[in-house]
């Protein structure tokens, strides 16, 4: 802010934008009065004490899976209709402590399961670049809110690409931090060894500032890593470094990869090489196994995490009287969950069931180990891995929604980072001849967001985008 506007004016501006873009269906609820109230408080505070807080007046939207005390929270599912959050997610608390304004909660695929935002109890979110196309998922509403200028920054969650893939489809930046970087306390669990809160923005600096505020140890989540918090100031130093970058040969040879995306990626690699960086193809013979591994492990974890929705302590309770407790649970759950969620619970129950556990679940954990070893070997030689973010640009509604497996393959380049716990970002560098934007994914080693964001800034300059 340059001192010529106020927080109240900023909030009013975004509220008008949200109102004018209701057809996109990005928000499921807007906290209008409360956001104006917070803005007024900040304006008064600033007139007395000057700028306070690292995110003073930053207007942020949050995906409907992140807990904000006293507000509705539903994971875009009927099973949580009417549920009110009774505490703040740690990430939300840290944002509020630094002066951020939460403007509303954003539409998503039910329980963050999906790649197109076609699985929401609140209906589809439309891609603002072409409303006949999906915004991606599962954090579709959060991506479109930033794409259409309805807030400055959004929080999403990323279990297998749910931040990076919609960022790619919407032409914005989307960061999935390292596993353990941001507390998951107050994030509705899908797959606990994969989930991370992620950030959507229109430039690297905004994302870095929000990341810094949300990162770090938290007494409510023992999986948070105690590594130093990535400082946004680290991006201000001039970066003249020469990077050593890798890409997976098999990723570019994949038959599902759109030829234009491949050509743009290759041309970009040439420009990087011309600037003096080293970009090399490395073998990654496990590429075809990452999506199966991901689905075994995440559905297993989901079947366990979602067992809490039984209609007793919270959530939908069936109007049909069942006098047997087991029938009672089944009725509550079957009426409350949507189809994709049920499919994944069933698959997860299968891979964890006696007789199949070792063949599927343990096997997938072993492949995860191999992937992790491979990742360490690559980062002992390279600073970062580049890849397309998604094999095709944003598709049309209904195009893939009847084929769960084709939908799964949209995640082929993104699930890897969640499987091995490394950070990844999608950078909006390209445009397809069909008019849709698409991005490039950059990944660095675990807990090395500083290199990731510094390199991202460089790469945005290579294309003259930032």
């Amino acid at each position: 802010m340059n001192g010529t506007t106020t927080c109240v004016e900023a909030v009013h501006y975004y509220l008008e934008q949200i109102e004018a873009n209701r057809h996109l269906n990005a928000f499921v609820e807007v906290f209008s009065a409360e956001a104006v109230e917070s803005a007024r408080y900040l304006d008064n505070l600033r007139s007395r004490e000057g700028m306070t807080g690292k995110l003073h007046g930053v207007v942020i939207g949050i995906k409907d899976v992140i807990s904000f005390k006293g507000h509705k929270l539903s994971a875009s599912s009927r099973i949580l209709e009417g549920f009110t959050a009774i505490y703040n997610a740690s990430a939300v608390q840290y944002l509020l402590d630094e002066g951020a304004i939460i403007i509303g909660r954003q539409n998503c695929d039910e329980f963050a399961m999906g790649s197109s935002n076609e699985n929401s109890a609140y209906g589809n979110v439309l891609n603002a670049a072409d409303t006949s196309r999906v915004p991606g998922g599962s954090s579709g509403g959060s991506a479109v809110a930033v794409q259409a200028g309805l807030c400055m920054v959004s929080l999403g969650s990323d279990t297998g690409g749910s931040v990076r893939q919609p960022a790619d489809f919407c032409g914005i930046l989307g960061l999935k931090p390292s596993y353990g970087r941001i507390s998951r306390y107050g994030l509705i669990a899908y797959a606990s060894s994969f989930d991370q809160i992620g950030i959507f923005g229109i430039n690297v600096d905004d994302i870095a500032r929000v990341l810094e505020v949300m990162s770090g140890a938290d007494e409510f989540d023992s999986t948070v890593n105690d590594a130093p918090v990535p400082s946004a100031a680290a991006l201000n130093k001039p970066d003249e470094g020469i990077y050593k970058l890798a890409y997976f040969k098999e990723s570019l040879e994949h038959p599902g990869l759109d030829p234009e995306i491949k050509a743009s990626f290759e041309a970009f690699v040439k420009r990087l090489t011309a600037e003096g960086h080293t970009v090399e193809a490395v073998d990654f013979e496990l590429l075809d196994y990452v999506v199966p591994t991901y689905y075994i492990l995440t559905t297993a974890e989901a079947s366990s995490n979602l067992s809490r929705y039984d209609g007793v302590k919270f959530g939908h309770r069936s109007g049909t009287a069942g006098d047997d407790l087991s029938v009672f649970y089944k009725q509550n759950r079957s009426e409350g969950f949507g189809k994709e969620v049920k499919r994944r619970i069933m698959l997860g129950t299968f891979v964890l069931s006696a007789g199949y556990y070792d063949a599927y679940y343990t096997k997938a954990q072993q492949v995860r180990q191999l992937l992790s070893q491979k990742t360490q070997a690559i980062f002992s030689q390279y600073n970062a891995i580049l890849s397309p973010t998604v094999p095709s640009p944003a598709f049309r509604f209904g195009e893939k929604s009847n084929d769960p497996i084709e939908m799964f393959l949209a995640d082929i380049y993104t699930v890897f980072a969640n499987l091995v716990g490394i950070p990844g970002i999608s950078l909006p560098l390209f445009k397809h001849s069909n008019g849709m934007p698409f991005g490039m994914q950059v990944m660095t080693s675990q807990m090395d967001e500083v290199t990731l964001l510094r390199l991202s800034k460089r790469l945005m300059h290579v294309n003259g985008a930032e």
Partner: protein
Amino acid sequence: MEITDKAFDQLAHLSRLQFTDTEKEEIKGDLQRMIAFVEKLEEVDTTGVTPLLHMSSASNVWREDAVKGSVTREDALLNAADADGQFFKVPKVIKK
């Protein structure tokens, strides 16, 4: 792998889900295709590989055993479909 009706019903029971016959046919078909898809992992040689169980390198993250408040009873009961101010209520489960 073929998922029999009996196996499907058992999975649905373990998942505490119920399906109409139409839903069952559809989900059963999807489940079979998804299982066939993930069976691709059989091709990977994992002999002697230790399963990766935890994403964090940290082990045993301890804290002081301090007595602290948690949510209040009022908050805990806030979202219950049926409660009497002290307890969550469910259908009677003890049969005569």
